[in-house]
Protein backbone atom coordinates (compact mmCIF):
# COMPACT_ATOMS: atom_id res chain seq x y z
CA UNK A 1 0.00 0.00 0.00
CA UNK A 2 1.05 3.52 -0.62
CA UNK A 3 1.53 5.52 2.55
CA UNK A 4 0.85 9.21 2.81
CA UNK A 5 4.53 10.06 2.93
CA UNK A 6 5.24 8.04 -0.18
CA UNK A 7 2.31 9.66 -1.87
CA UNK A 8 3.56 13.13 -1.07
CA UNK A 9 7.08 12.30 -2.10
CA UNK A 10 5.87 10.99 -5.42
CA UNK A 11 3.60 13.93 -5.90
CA UNK A 12 6.41 16.39 -5.24
CA UNK A 13 8.73 14.53 -7.58
CA UNK A 14 6.12 14.42 -10.33
CA UNK A 15 5.10 18.02 -9.91
CA UNK A 16 8.64 19.37 -9.92
CA UNK A 17 9.69 17.45 -13.00
CA UNK A 18 6.37 18.52 -14.52
CA UNK A 19 7.28 22.13 -13.90
CA UNK A 20 10.29 21.74 -16.17
CA UNK A 21 8.04 20.27 -18.86
CA UNK A 22 5.92 23.34 -18.32
CA UNK A 23 8.95 25.55 -18.92
CA UNK A 24 9.57 23.78 -22.20
CA UNK A 25 5.92 24.28 -22.99
CA UNK A 26 6.38 28.00 -22.38
CA UNK A 27 9.02 27.98 -25.06
CA UNK A 28 6.42 26.62 -27.47
CA UNK A 29 3.75 29.09 -26.33
CA UNK A 30 5.90 32.22 -26.71
CA UNK A 31 6.81 31.40 -30.27
CA UNK A 32 3.38 30.20 -31.32
CA UNK A 33 1.86 33.41 -30.04
CA UNK A 34 4.29 35.70 -31.75
CA UNK A 35 4.91 34.08 -35.12
CA UNK A 36 2.46 31.19 -35.30
CA UNK A 37 5.17 28.62 -35.74
CA UNK A 38 6.36 25.61 -33.84
CA UNK A 39 10.08 25.53 -33.55
CA UNK A 40 11.23 21.95 -33.25
CA UNK A 41 14.84 23.05 -32.93
CA UNK A 42 13.94 24.30 -29.50
CA UNK A 43 13.77 20.66 -28.41
CA UNK A 44 17.55 20.74 -28.35
CA UNK A 45 17.88 23.99 -26.38
CA UNK A 46 17.68 22.03 -23.12
CA UNK A 47 20.52 19.78 -24.25
CA UNK A 48 22.56 22.72 -25.51
CA UNK A 49 22.38 24.62 -22.25
CA UNK A 50 23.45 21.57 -20.25
CA UNK A 51 26.41 20.82 -22.51
CA UNK A 52 27.46 24.48 -22.60
CA UNK A 53 27.33 24.57 -18.82
CA UNK A 54 29.35 21.37 -18.66
CA UNK A 55 31.84 22.74 -21.15
CA UNK A 56 32.35 26.04 -19.34
CA UNK A 57 32.67 24.46 -15.92
CA UNK A 58 34.59 21.27 -16.59
CA UNK A 59 36.70 22.24 -19.58
CA UNK A 60 37.26 25.94 -19.03
CA UNK A 61 37.18 25.74 -15.24
CA UNK A 62 34.75 28.60 -14.74
CA UNK A 63 32.67 28.72 -11.61
CA UNK A 64 29.39 26.84 -11.67
CA UNK A 65 27.21 29.90 -11.37
CA UNK A 66 29.08 31.79 -14.07
CA UNK A 67 28.97 28.75 -16.33
CA UNK A 68 25.23 28.43 -15.84
CA UNK A 69 24.65 32.12 -16.58
CA UNK A 70 26.88 32.00 -19.66
CA UNK A 71 25.11 28.89 -20.91
CA UNK A 72 21.72 30.54 -20.57
CA UNK A 73 22.93 33.71 -22.28
CA UNK A 74 24.31 31.73 -25.20
CA UNK A 75 21.06 29.80 -25.52
CA UNK A 76 19.21 33.13 -25.56
CA UNK A 77 21.45 34.38 -28.37
CA UNK A 78 20.84 31.07 -30.13
CA UNK A 79 17.15 32.04 -30.14
CA UNK A 80 18.01 35.19 -32.09
CA UNK A 81 20.12 33.12 -34.45
CA UNK A 82 17.17 30.85 -35.13
CA UNK A 83 15.18 33.84 -36.21
CA UNK A 84 17.72 35.42 -38.51
CA UNK A 85 19.40 32.32 -39.90
CA UNK A 86 16.39 30.07 -40.25
CA UNK A 87 13.01 31.70 -39.89
CA UNK A 88 13.65 34.85 -41.89
CA UNK A 89 15.42 33.23 -44.88
CA UNK A 90 12.72 30.58 -45.17
CA UNK A 91 9.92 33.12 -44.94
CA UNK A 92 11.65 35.35 -47.47
CA UNK A 93 11.77 32.54 -50.00
CA UNK A 94 8.08 31.93 -49.62
CA UNK A 95 8.60 28.84 -47.48
CA UNK A 96 5.60 28.02 -45.37
CA UNK A 97 5.17 26.25 -42.09
CA UNK A 98 6.17 22.87 -43.38
CA UNK A 99 9.56 24.13 -44.54
CA UNK A 100 10.11 25.66 -41.13
CA UNK A 101 9.09 22.41 -39.45
CA UNK A 102 11.49 20.34 -41.53
CA UNK A 103 14.37 22.77 -41.16
CA UNK A 104 14.00 22.98 -37.39
CA UNK A 105 13.64 19.23 -37.07
CA UNK A 106 16.82 18.77 -39.08
CA UNK A 107 18.54 21.29 -36.85
CA UNK A 108 17.62 19.16 -33.85
CA UNK A 109 19.11 16.15 -35.59
CA UNK A 110 22.17 18.24 -36.33
CA UNK A 111 22.73 19.21 -32.70
CA UNK A 112 22.09 15.69 -31.52
CA UNK A 113 24.61 14.20 -33.91
CA UNK A 114 27.11 16.94 -33.15
CA UNK A 115 26.86 16.34 -29.41
CA UNK A 116 27.16 12.59 -29.85
CA UNK A 117 30.11 13.02 -32.20
CA UNK A 118 31.88 15.34 -29.76
CA UNK A 119 31.00 13.85 -26.39
CA UNK A 120 29.84 10.34 -27.23
CA UNK A 121 26.47 8.93 -26.32
CA UNK A 122 27.27 8.07 -22.71
CA UNK A 123 26.01 10.39 -20.00
CA UNK A 124 28.53 12.41 -17.97
CA UNK A 125 28.30 13.64 -14.44
CA UNK A 126 26.30 16.84 -14.08
CA UNK A 127 28.31 19.32 -11.98
CA UNK A 128 26.41 19.81 -8.72
CA UNK A 129 24.89 23.16 -9.62
CA UNK A 130 22.11 22.60 -7.11
CA UNK A 131 24.23 20.89 -4.50
CA UNK A 132 24.20 17.19 -3.81
CA UNK A 133 21.39 15.66 -5.81
CA UNK A 134 20.90 12.87 -3.32
CA UNK A 135 20.37 15.16 -0.35
CA UNK A 136 16.94 15.55 1.26
CA UNK A 137 15.21 18.63 2.54
CA UNK A 138 12.64 18.06 5.28
CA UNK A 139 9.21 19.71 5.13
CA UNK A 140 6.71 18.97 7.84
CA UNK A 141 8.34 15.66 8.43
CA UNK A 142 8.39 14.66 4.79
CA UNK A 143 11.76 14.31 3.13
CA UNK A 144 11.95 15.85 -0.32
CA UNK A 145 14.95 15.50 -2.57
CA UNK A 146 16.80 18.81 -2.66
CA UNK A 147 16.76 18.90 -6.43
CA UNK A 148 12.98 18.94 -6.50
CA UNK A 149 13.04 21.76 -4.01
CA UNK A 150 15.31 23.73 -6.32
CA UNK A 151 13.15 23.02 -9.33
CA UNK A 152 10.09 24.40 -7.59
CA UNK A 153 11.94 27.47 -6.36
CA UNK A 154 13.56 28.27 -9.70
CA UNK A 155 10.35 27.82 -11.68
CA UNK A 156 8.40 29.84 -9.12
CA UNK A 157 10.89 32.70 -9.37
CA UNK A 158 10.92 32.49 -13.14
CA UNK A 159 7.15 32.45 -13.39
CA UNK A 160 6.83 35.43 -11.07
CA UNK A 161 9.36 37.26 -13.18
CA UNK A 162 7.51 36.39 -16.38
CA UNK A 163 4.23 37.37 -14.85
CA UNK A 164 5.61 40.76 -13.89
CA UNK A 165 7.13 41.26 -17.32
CA UNK A 166 4.01 40.27 -19.21
CA UNK A 167 1.48 42.00 -16.99
CA UNK A 168 3.23 45.01 -15.51
CA UNK A 169 5.79 46.32 -17.98
CA UNK A 170 5.03 48.18 -21.17
CA UNK A 171 7.27 45.77 -23.06
CA UNK A 172 5.25 42.82 -21.82
CA UNK A 173 1.98 44.46 -22.74
CA UNK A 174 3.36 45.21 -26.19
CA UNK A 175 4.32 41.57 -26.48
CA UNK A 176 0.82 40.46 -25.60
CA UNK A 177 -0.73 43.02 -27.93
CA UNK A 178 1.43 41.77 -30.80
CA UNK A 179 0.40 38.21 -30.04
CA UNK A 180 -3.25 39.17 -30.39
CA UNK A 181 -2.89 41.11 -33.61
CA UNK A 182 0.37 41.89 -35.28
CA UNK A 183 -1.23 44.29 -37.71
CA UNK A 184 -3.04 46.36 -35.12
CA UNK A 185 0.05 46.38 -32.94
CA UNK A 186 1.90 48.03 -35.81
CA UNK A 187 -0.81 50.64 -36.10
CA UNK A 188 -0.20 51.47 -32.45
CA UNK A 189 3.46 52.15 -33.22
CA UNK A 190 4.68 48.94 -31.64
CA UNK A 191 7.93 47.72 -33.14
CA UNK A 192 6.92 44.19 -34.02
CA UNK A 193 10.46 43.30 -35.02
CA UNK A 194 11.56 43.87 -31.50
CA UNK A 195 8.71 41.92 -29.96
CA UNK A 196 9.41 38.99 -32.29
CA UNK A 197 13.06 38.99 -31.24
CA UNK A 198 12.01 39.03 -27.64
CA UNK A 199 9.69 36.09 -28.22
CA UNK A 200 12.48 34.04 -29.82
CA UNK A 201 14.88 34.85 -27.02
CA UNK A 202 12.36 34.10 -24.29
CA UNK A 203 11.34 30.84 -25.90
CA UNK A 204 14.85 29.41 -26.03
CA UNK A 205 15.81 30.80 -22.65
CA UNK A 206 13.07 29.07 -20.68
CA UNK A 207 13.90 25.77 -22.35
CA UNK A 208 17.57 26.33 -21.53
CA UNK A 209 16.69 26.84 -17.88
CA UNK A 210 14.55 23.71 -17.96
CA UNK A 211 17.59 21.82 -19.26
CA UNK A 212 19.75 22.90 -16.34
CA UNK A 213 17.00 21.88 -13.93
CA UNK A 214 16.73 18.45 -15.53
CA UNK A 215 20.51 18.01 -15.51
CA UNK A 216 20.71 16.40 -12.07
CA UNK A 217 18.13 13.81 -13.16
CA UNK A 218 19.18 13.03 -16.71
CA UNK A 219 22.87 13.98 -16.33
CA UNK A 220 24.84 15.55 -19.15
CA UNK A 221 23.46 13.32 -21.85
CA UNK A 222 22.00 13.54 -25.35
CA UNK A 223 18.72 12.21 -23.95
CA UNK A 224 17.90 15.82 -23.10
CA UNK A 225 17.87 16.71 -26.79
CA UNK A 226 16.17 13.58 -27.99
CA UNK A 227 12.55 13.57 -28.99
CA UNK A 228 10.88 12.31 -25.84
CA UNK A 229 11.59 15.15 -23.41
CA UNK A 230 10.94 17.87 -25.97
CA UNK A 231 7.66 16.23 -26.85
CA UNK A 232 6.59 16.51 -23.23
CA UNK A 233 7.07 20.25 -23.57
CA UNK A 234 4.72 20.16 -26.55
CA UNK A 235 2.23 18.09 -24.59
CA UNK A 236 2.28 20.68 -21.80
CA UNK A 237 1.81 23.52 -24.29
CA UNK A 238 -1.00 21.69 -26.05
CA UNK A 239 -2.91 21.46 -22.78
CA UNK A 240 -2.82 25.25 -22.63
CA UNK A 241 -4.05 25.43 -26.21
CA UNK A 242 -0.57 26.63 -27.28
CA UNK A 243 -1.53 30.17 -26.24
CA UNK A 244 -1.80 30.18 -22.46
CA UNK A 245 1.52 30.35 -20.59
CA UNK A 246 -0.08 29.50 -17.27
CA UNK A 247 -1.96 26.68 -18.92
CA UNK A 248 1.31 25.29 -20.23
CA UNK A 249 2.83 25.28 -16.75
CA UNK A 250 -0.23 23.63 -15.25
CA UNK A 251 -0.28 21.18 -18.15
CA UNK A 252 3.32 20.29 -17.40
CA UNK A 253 2.55 19.76 -13.73
CA UNK A 254 -0.38 17.47 -14.47
CA UNK A 255 1.71 15.57 -16.98
CA UNK A 256 4.59 15.19 -14.53
CA UNK A 257 2.33 13.91 -11.78
CA UNK A 258 0.56 11.57 -14.16
CA UNK A 259 3.87 10.18 -15.33
CA UNK A 260 5.20 9.66 -11.87
CA UNK A 261 2.15 7.81 -10.65
CA UNK A 262 1.95 5.71 -13.77
CA UNK A 263 5.55 4.65 -13.17
CA UNK A 264 4.51 3.73 -9.68
CA UNK A 265 1.33 1.87 -10.51
CA UNK A 266 1.79 0.58 -14.04
CA UNK A 267 5.31 0.40 -15.39
CA UNK A 268 8.07 2.80 -16.21
CA UNK A 269 8.20 1.32 -19.67
CA UNK A 270 4.95 2.99 -20.61
CA UNK A 271 5.69 6.27 -18.87
CA UNK A 272 6.41 8.20 -22.07
CA UNK A 273 3.46 6.71 -23.87
CA UNK A 274 1.23 8.65 -21.49
CA UNK A 275 2.53 12.05 -22.63
CA UNK A 276 2.19 11.06 -26.25
CA UNK A 277 -1.31 9.80 -25.71
CA UNK A 278 -2.16 13.03 -23.88
CA UNK A 279 -1.09 15.05 -26.92
CA UNK A 280 -3.18 12.94 -29.25
CA UNK A 281 -6.25 12.83 -27.02
CA UNK A 282 -6.24 16.52 -26.13
CA UNK A 283 -5.68 17.62 -29.71
CA UNK A 284 -8.42 15.41 -31.05
CA UNK A 285 -10.86 16.00 -28.25
CA UNK A 286 -10.25 19.67 -27.48
CA UNK A 287 -7.69 21.33 -29.76
CA UNK A 288 -8.13 24.66 -27.99
CA UNK A 289 -6.58 23.14 -24.88
CA UNK A 290 -8.00 22.11 -21.56
CA UNK A 291 -6.15 24.67 -19.46
CA UNK A 292 -6.70 27.62 -21.70
CA UNK A 293 -7.84 30.81 -20.04
CA UNK A 294 -6.62 32.98 -22.86
CA UNK A 295 -9.60 33.40 -25.10
CA UNK A 296 -7.79 33.49 -28.39
CA UNK A 297 -10.30 34.00 -31.12
CA UNK A 298 -10.04 31.96 -34.23
Amino acid at each position, binding site marked *: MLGLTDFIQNLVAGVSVGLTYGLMGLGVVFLWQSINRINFANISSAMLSVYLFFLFHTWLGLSMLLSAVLAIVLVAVYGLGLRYLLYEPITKRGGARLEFVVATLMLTVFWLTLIIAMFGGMPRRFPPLFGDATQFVRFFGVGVRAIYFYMIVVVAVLMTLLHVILRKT*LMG*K*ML*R*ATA*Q*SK*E*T*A*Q*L*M*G*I*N*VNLTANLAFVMSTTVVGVAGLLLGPIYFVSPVLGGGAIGIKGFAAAVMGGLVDPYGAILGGVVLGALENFSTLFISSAYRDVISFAVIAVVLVWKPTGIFNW*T*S*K*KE
Partner: protein
Amino acid sequence: MKLLSIENISATYGGIHALRAVNLHVDSGEVVSVLGPNGAGKSTLLRVISGLVKPEPGGVVSFHGRSLIGVEPYKIARQGIAHVPEGRQIFPDLSVDENLEVAGVRIDAGKRKTKTAEVYELFTELATRKKQIAGSLSGGEQQMLAIGRALVSDCELIMIDEPSMGLAPVIVMRIFTTLRDIMESKGLTLLIVEQNARLSLQLSDRVYVLSQGEITLDGPVDLIKEDEEMRELYFATEK
Protein backbone atom coordinates in the same frame (compact mmCIF):
# COMPACT_ATOMS: atom_id res chain seq x y z
CA MET B 1 -0.81 73.79 -45.14
CA LYS B 2 -0.84 70.30 -46.55
CA LEU B 3 -0.40 67.77 -43.77
CA LEU B 4 -1.06 64.63 -45.75
CA SER B 5 -0.73 64.46 -49.46
CA ILE B 6 -1.55 61.59 -51.80
CA GLU B 7 -0.80 61.75 -55.48
CA ASN B 8 -1.47 59.22 -58.18
CA ILE B 9 -1.81 56.23 -55.85
CA SER B 10 -2.88 52.89 -57.28
CA ALA B 11 -3.03 49.69 -55.33
CA THR B 12 -4.15 46.12 -55.87
CA TYR B 13 -5.57 44.05 -53.10
CA GLY B 14 -6.25 40.36 -53.62
CA GLY B 15 -6.06 40.70 -57.39
CA ILE B 16 -8.54 43.58 -57.39
CA HIS B 17 -7.56 47.05 -58.50
CA ALA B 18 -8.72 48.61 -55.27
CA LEU B 19 -7.37 52.08 -55.99
CA ARG B 20 -6.77 53.72 -59.34
CA ALA B 21 -4.67 56.89 -59.54
CA VAL B 22 -6.12 58.48 -56.44
CA ASN B 23 -5.23 62.09 -55.52
CA LEU B 24 -6.17 63.43 -52.13
CA HIS B 25 -4.85 65.76 -49.50
CA VAL B 26 -5.64 66.73 -45.93
CA ASP B 27 -4.66 70.09 -44.49
CA SER B 28 -3.77 70.72 -40.91
CA GLY B 29 -6.85 71.22 -38.75
CA GLU B 30 -9.25 69.95 -41.38
CA VAL B 31 -11.89 67.25 -41.25
CA VAL B 32 -12.07 65.34 -44.48
CA SER B 33 -14.58 62.62 -45.32
CA VAL B 34 -14.12 59.92 -47.88
CA LEU B 35 -17.51 58.54 -48.81
CA GLY B 36 -18.48 55.67 -50.99
CA PRO B 37 -20.30 52.37 -51.05
CA ASN B 38 -18.77 49.13 -49.89
CA GLY B 39 -15.93 47.84 -51.92
CA ALA B 40 -15.08 51.28 -53.25
CA GLY B 41 -11.55 51.03 -51.89
CA LYS B 42 -11.94 53.22 -48.82
CA SER B 43 -10.25 50.86 -46.41
CA THR B 44 -7.46 50.15 -48.84
CA LEU B 45 -6.81 53.88 -49.04
CA LEU B 46 -6.27 54.11 -45.29
CA ARG B 47 -4.17 50.95 -45.31
CA VAL B 48 -1.92 52.44 -47.96
CA ILE B 49 -1.40 55.56 -45.84
CA SER B 50 -0.54 53.59 -42.71
CA GLY B 51 1.82 51.35 -44.65
CA LEU B 52 -0.14 48.08 -44.38
CA VAL B 53 -0.68 47.92 -48.14
CA LYS B 54 2.08 48.71 -50.58
CA PRO B 55 0.92 50.95 -53.43
CA GLU B 56 2.09 50.47 -56.98
CA PRO B 57 5.22 52.41 -57.85
CA GLY B 58 4.87 55.89 -59.22
CA GLY B 59 2.66 57.42 -56.57
CA VAL B 60 3.30 59.75 -53.67
CA VAL B 61 2.17 59.50 -50.06
CA SER B 62 3.70 62.16 -47.88
CA PHE B 63 3.18 63.48 -44.39
CA HIS B 64 4.66 66.85 -43.52
CA GLY B 65 6.31 66.62 -46.90
CA ARG B 66 8.15 63.39 -45.98
CA SER B 67 7.44 60.34 -48.08
CA LEU B 68 5.74 57.44 -46.28
CA ILE B 69 6.17 54.92 -49.06
CA GLY B 70 8.19 51.89 -47.99
CA VAL B 71 8.26 53.06 -44.37
CA GLU B 72 7.36 50.35 -41.87
CA PRO B 73 3.84 50.72 -40.47
CA TYR B 74 4.97 51.13 -36.88
CA LYS B 75 7.29 53.95 -37.88
CA ILE B 76 4.46 55.70 -39.70
CA ALA B 77 2.34 55.42 -36.57
CA ARG B 78 5.17 56.92 -34.56
CA GLN B 79 5.28 59.92 -36.89
CA GLY B 80 1.86 60.86 -35.57
CA ILE B 81 -0.71 59.11 -37.76
CA ALA B 82 -3.27 57.09 -35.85
CA HIS B 83 -5.33 54.60 -37.83
CA VAL B 84 -8.53 53.38 -36.20
CA PRO B 85 -9.03 50.26 -38.30
CA GLU B 86 -12.19 48.81 -39.71
CA GLY B 87 -13.97 46.63 -37.19
CA ARG B 88 -12.16 48.46 -34.36
CA GLN B 89 -9.56 45.73 -33.74
CA ILE B 90 -9.08 46.37 -30.06
CA PHE B 91 -6.81 43.87 -28.29
CA PRO B 92 -9.48 41.60 -26.81
CA ASP B 93 -7.36 39.98 -24.09
CA LEU B 94 -5.82 43.20 -22.85
CA SER B 95 -7.69 45.32 -20.33
CA VAL B 96 -9.09 48.72 -21.29
CA ASP B 97 -6.22 50.34 -19.46
CA GLU B 98 -3.64 48.20 -21.21
CA ASN B 99 -5.19 48.88 -24.60
CA LEU B 100 -4.73 52.57 -24.03
CA GLU B 101 -1.24 52.12 -22.65
CA VAL B 102 0.18 50.22 -25.61
CA ALA B 103 -1.25 52.86 -27.93
CA GLY B 104 0.95 55.47 -26.32
CA VAL B 105 4.35 53.99 -27.03
CA ARG B 106 5.50 57.09 -28.88
CA ILE B 107 5.15 59.39 -25.88
CA ASP B 108 6.68 59.28 -22.40
CA ALA B 109 4.95 57.73 -19.42
CA GLY B 110 3.93 61.02 -17.81
CA LYS B 111 2.25 62.34 -20.91
CA ARG B 112 0.61 59.00 -21.44
CA LYS B 113 -1.01 59.28 -18.05
CA THR B 114 -2.54 62.70 -18.73
CA LYS B 115 -3.69 61.59 -22.16
CA THR B 116 -5.31 58.47 -20.71
CA ALA B 117 -7.08 60.56 -18.10
CA GLU B 118 -8.41 62.79 -20.87
CA VAL B 119 -9.79 59.79 -22.73
CA TYR B 120 -11.58 58.55 -19.61
CA GLU B 121 -13.09 61.99 -19.21
CA LEU B 122 -14.39 61.92 -22.77
CA PHE B 123 -15.67 58.37 -22.62
CA THR B 124 -17.00 57.94 -19.13
CA GLU B 125 -18.29 54.49 -20.12
CA LEU B 126 -14.69 53.35 -20.36
CA ALA B 127 -13.64 54.92 -17.08
CA THR B 128 -15.80 52.47 -15.15
CA ARG B 129 -14.30 49.49 -16.96
CA LYS B 130 -10.59 50.23 -16.75
CA LYS B 131 -9.59 46.77 -15.55
CA GLN B 132 -12.08 44.88 -17.67
CA ILE B 133 -10.90 42.72 -20.59
CA ALA B 134 -11.55 44.72 -23.75
CA GLY B 135 -13.09 41.75 -25.51
CA SER B 136 -16.00 41.89 -23.09
CA LEU B 137 -16.98 45.43 -24.06
CA SER B 138 -20.02 46.15 -26.21
CA GLY B 139 -19.54 47.19 -29.82
CA GLY B 140 -20.03 50.87 -29.03
CA GLU B 141 -17.60 50.77 -26.13
CA GLN B 142 -15.06 49.01 -28.30
CA GLN B 143 -15.36 51.78 -30.86
CA MET B 144 -14.83 54.35 -28.11
CA LEU B 145 -11.78 52.44 -26.95
CA ALA B 146 -10.44 52.33 -30.49
CA ILE B 147 -10.85 56.09 -30.83
CA GLY B 148 -9.45 56.50 -27.33
CA ARG B 149 -6.32 54.65 -28.37
CA ALA B 150 -5.83 57.11 -31.20
CA LEU B 151 -6.21 60.04 -28.82
CA VAL B 152 -3.72 58.62 -26.33
CA SER B 153 -1.09 58.37 -29.03
CA ASP B 154 -1.03 62.18 -29.18
CA CYS B 155 -1.11 62.07 -32.95
CA GLU B 156 -1.53 64.85 -35.46
CA LEU B 157 -3.83 62.99 -37.80
CA ILE B 158 -6.52 60.47 -36.93
CA MET B 159 -7.85 58.23 -39.67
CA ILE B 160 -11.08 56.45 -38.81
CA ASP B 161 -12.43 53.58 -40.86
CA GLU B 162 -16.22 53.33 -40.70
CA PRO B 163 -16.87 54.25 -37.08
CA SER B 164 -20.57 53.52 -37.54
CA MET B 165 -20.19 49.97 -38.84
CA GLY B 166 -22.44 47.53 -37.05
CA LEU B 167 -23.48 50.02 -34.39
CA ALA B 168 -26.99 51.06 -33.41
CA PRO B 169 -28.00 54.62 -34.43
CA VAL B 170 -27.97 55.92 -30.84
CA ILE B 171 -24.39 54.75 -30.37
CA VAL B 172 -23.36 56.15 -33.73
CA MET B 173 -24.75 59.51 -32.62
CA ARG B 174 -22.77 59.30 -29.40
CA ILE B 175 -19.56 58.54 -31.27
CA PHE B 176 -20.01 61.33 -33.74
CA THR B 177 -20.91 63.96 -31.14
CA THR B 178 -17.80 63.03 -29.21
CA LEU B 179 -15.73 63.28 -32.36
CA ARG B 180 -17.15 66.74 -32.93
CA ASP B 181 -16.38 67.76 -29.35
CA ILE B 182 -12.84 66.54 -29.62
CA MET B 183 -12.29 68.48 -32.79
CA GLU B 184 -13.74 71.65 -31.41
CA SER B 185 -11.71 71.49 -28.24
CA LYS B 186 -8.45 70.16 -29.64
CA GLY B 187 -8.39 71.13 -33.27
CA LEU B 188 -7.38 67.67 -34.42
CA THR B 189 -7.05 66.75 -38.05
CA LEU B 190 -9.38 63.98 -39.06
CA LEU B 191 -9.77 61.73 -42.07
CA ILE B 192 -13.01 59.77 -41.87
CA VAL B 193 -13.94 56.98 -44.19
CA GLU B 194 -17.66 56.34 -44.02
CA GLN B 195 -20.70 54.88 -45.57
CA ASN B 196 -22.97 56.74 -43.19
CA ALA B 197 -22.87 59.96 -45.17
CA ARG B 198 -25.36 62.13 -43.34
CA LEU B 199 -23.49 62.27 -40.08
CA SER B 200 -19.97 62.46 -41.41
CA LEU B 201 -20.89 65.29 -43.75
CA GLN B 202 -22.06 67.38 -40.82
CA LEU B 203 -18.62 67.00 -39.35
CA SER B 204 -16.54 67.64 -42.43
CA ASP B 205 -14.96 70.57 -44.17
CA ARG B 206 -14.28 68.76 -47.39
CA VAL B 207 -15.37 65.53 -48.94
CA TYR B 208 -14.11 63.02 -51.48
CA VAL B 209 -16.33 60.45 -53.12
CA LEU B 210 -14.65 57.18 -53.92
CA SER B 211 -16.31 54.80 -56.32
CA GLN B 212 -14.79 51.61 -57.66
CA GLY B 213 -11.34 52.77 -56.69
CA GLU B 214 -11.54 56.17 -58.28
CA ILE B 215 -12.24 59.62 -56.85
CA THR B 216 -15.35 60.66 -58.71
CA LEU B 217 -16.11 63.86 -56.85
CA ASP B 218 -14.26 66.15 -54.48
CA GLY B 219 -14.67 69.58 -52.98
CA PRO B 220 -16.25 71.41 -50.07
CA VAL B 221 -19.06 69.69 -48.24
CA ASP B 222 -21.82 71.85 -49.76
CA LEU B 223 -21.06 70.14 -53.02
CA ILE B 224 -23.16 67.13 -52.14
CA LYS B 225 -25.25 68.46 -49.32
CA GLU B 226 -28.32 67.67 -51.35
CA ASP B 227 -29.81 64.42 -50.18
CA GLU B 228 -30.77 63.39 -53.68
CA GLU B 229 -27.18 63.34 -54.75
CA MET B 230 -26.22 61.15 -51.86
CA ARG B 231 -28.92 58.73 -52.76
CA GLU B 232 -27.54 58.60 -56.25
CA LEU B 233 -24.17 57.91 -54.81
CA TYR B 234 -25.35 54.71 -53.19
CA PHE B 235 -28.23 53.64 -55.34
CA ALA B 236 -26.32 54.91 -58.33
CA THR B 237 -28.00 55.11 -61.64
CA GLU B 238 -25.46 55.90 -64.31
CA LYS B 239 -22.39 53.82 -64.75
